[in-house]
């Protein structure tokens, strides 16, 4: 595949330490598109070796609005089925530029390792010195040892090392959309992290038409339904939590966006610094980036103060445990003390309900946000959400943003595919690709 691609699938065998490469076949892209379509296909090929697959969507890392998504596919320790979780911030984009389109990781390493992907090179490196450290320390150590603060990490903490079903693969220092326990899969493979840095280049089949279309779409959505809104608190408000903004306002520092995503889905709160501070804080760890809407909502509804809720979320990200599961368990037990909730992480076992969402992460709220998508009523949300998420995970669109921008239609995605790759995607093939990943 010459366009929107590095034309490389990497296969990493942690048991033997062998690394090999395949080309990304045009035929595969024509049929399966990208993202979850291809990770699913690779899962089937390598299923005997308990693989975990990383990938990016077809449009990830381009100028197409919302093109922030990377995807992890594996069998979920929590459901026993093949499921998919998104990773965003800048990590999806960084993955796309590492020089690999998809990475299949099989086998179990004899000792702790991390996988270092950069500039078309893959190295399995010793992680013994990071094993036992939390998510934040691991990311700090990897960045320091490589001398590059822009390295993005998919990383586990103690929860993954100890084999908790609730373990999450985090992104850098923060939560991710992994509600499937993929942190445990990393831990079982003795894989502490995947470190990403990309300096690659993506050619476009018809650059002028493709970029013209990106600007046109951008102009349409810029004044769309989410205009003037920002952060997790406005998403909560759209979900009916009317006082969310007021609740968290005293701690909000700034809002930020995942790569090329016009809506800033992330809210940074300061806990140990004045949130109004504009200069660089002297405190090294002044706060936390909230990107899990569902976890925050559950903690709020359980009666925690905004400060307590944020402390819980920060502790989850350091320990590498799914904050939505922790929030659900705390709400059930009535525990509101962040220190006590944190102390419970060690023994927290999987009595939590299986995540909703079928194969896609319920990290993206299961409803339209700000826009109405012409749905008749709430009974239509379920089917709509699954198809919308499938589309986002195939093309590489931020899965929360996909639920706020009806302008990103299936017809438009087909057009972008054709302009970007020079191949010919039809609605029938798209329907089939969606059906294949939803089965």
């Amino acid at each position, binding site marked *: 595949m010459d366009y929107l691609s590095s034309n490389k699938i990497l296969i990493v065998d942690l048991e033997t330490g062998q690394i090999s490469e395949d080309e990304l076949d045009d035929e595969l892209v024509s049929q399966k598109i990208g993202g979850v379509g291809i990770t699913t296909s690779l899962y089937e090929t390598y299923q005997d070796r308990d693989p975990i697959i990383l990938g990016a969507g077809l449009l990830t890392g381009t100028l197409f609005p919302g093109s922030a998504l990377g995807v992890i596919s594996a069998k979920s320790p929590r459901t026993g089925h093949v499921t998919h979780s998104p990773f965003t911030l800048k990590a999806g984009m960084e993955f796309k*530029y590492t020089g690999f389109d998809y990475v299949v990781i099989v086998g179990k390493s004899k000792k702790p390792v991390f996988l270092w992907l950069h500039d078309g090179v893959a190295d399995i490196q010793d992680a013994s010195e990071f094993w036992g450290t939390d998510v934040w320390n691991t990311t700090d150590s990897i960045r320091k040892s490589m001398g590059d603060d822009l390295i993005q990490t998919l990383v586990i903490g103690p929860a993954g090392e100890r084999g908790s079903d609730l373990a999450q693969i985090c992104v850098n220092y923060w939560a991710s959309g992994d509600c499937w326990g993929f942190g445990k899969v990393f831990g079982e493979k003795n894989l502490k992290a995947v470190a990403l840095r990309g300096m690659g280049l993506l050619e476009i089949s018809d650059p002028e038409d493709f970029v013209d279309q990106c600007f046109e779409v951008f102009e349409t959505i810029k004044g769309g339904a989410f205009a003037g809104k920002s952060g997790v608190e406005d998403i909560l408000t759209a979900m009916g939590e009317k006082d969310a903004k007021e609740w968290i306002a005293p701690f909000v520092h700034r809002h930020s966006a995942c790569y090329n995503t016009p809506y800033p889905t992330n809210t940074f709160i300061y806990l140990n610094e004045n949130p109004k501070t504009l200069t660089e804080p002297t405190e090294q760890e002044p706060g936390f980036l909230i990107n899990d809407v569902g976890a925050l909502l559950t903690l709020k509804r359980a009666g925690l103060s905004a400060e307590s809720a944020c402390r819980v979320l920060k502790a989850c990200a350091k320990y590498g445990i799914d904050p939505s599961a922790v929030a659900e368990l705390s709400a059930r037990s009535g525990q509101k003390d962040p220190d006590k909730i944190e102390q419970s992480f060690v023994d927290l076992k999987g009595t939590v309900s299986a995540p909703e969402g079928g194969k896609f992460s319920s990290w993206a709220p299961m409803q339209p946000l700000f826009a109405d998508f012409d749905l008749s009523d709430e009974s239509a949300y379920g089917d709509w959400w699954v198809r919308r998420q499938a589309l986002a995970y195939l093309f590489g669109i931020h899965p929360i943003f996909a639920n706020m921008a009806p302008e990103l239609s299936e017809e438009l995605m087909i057009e972008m595919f054709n302009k970007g790759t020079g191949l010919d995607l039809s609605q029938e093939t798209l329907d089939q690709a969606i059906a294949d990943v939803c089965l």
Partner: protein
Amino acid sequence: MRIDVDALKCIGCMACEMACGYHRDDAFALLASCIVVYRARDKKDYFGVVIKEEESLTIARPEGLEIKRIGVTEESSDSGQKKEADASAKPMLLREPCDLCSGMKYGPMCVKICPVDAISLIEGGE
């Protein structure tokens, strides 16, 4: 005319950086962009934008704009400490300066693509 950035409006999305990269390479890549989001201090939520111009680096920090002449190290007036651009901005010195997207039909692409209108074209040279 020159590019101006209001770092307080910026949400750090990097769309400007990729648009500039496209202007340089006719493909998607970040290596040649002359507008770069500095984002290495993510644990502190401290981010802004750096632009390479012919003879200066414009650093748009949340607390305000700083223009550094290339080759001159200045003392910052507020803290007395030497201020440097972020690590991610250092290779900037090797990049082509902003040419306001000369030859592109879109005009300055970073201005056009910014979702929060943090970038504008203003009167004045360097």
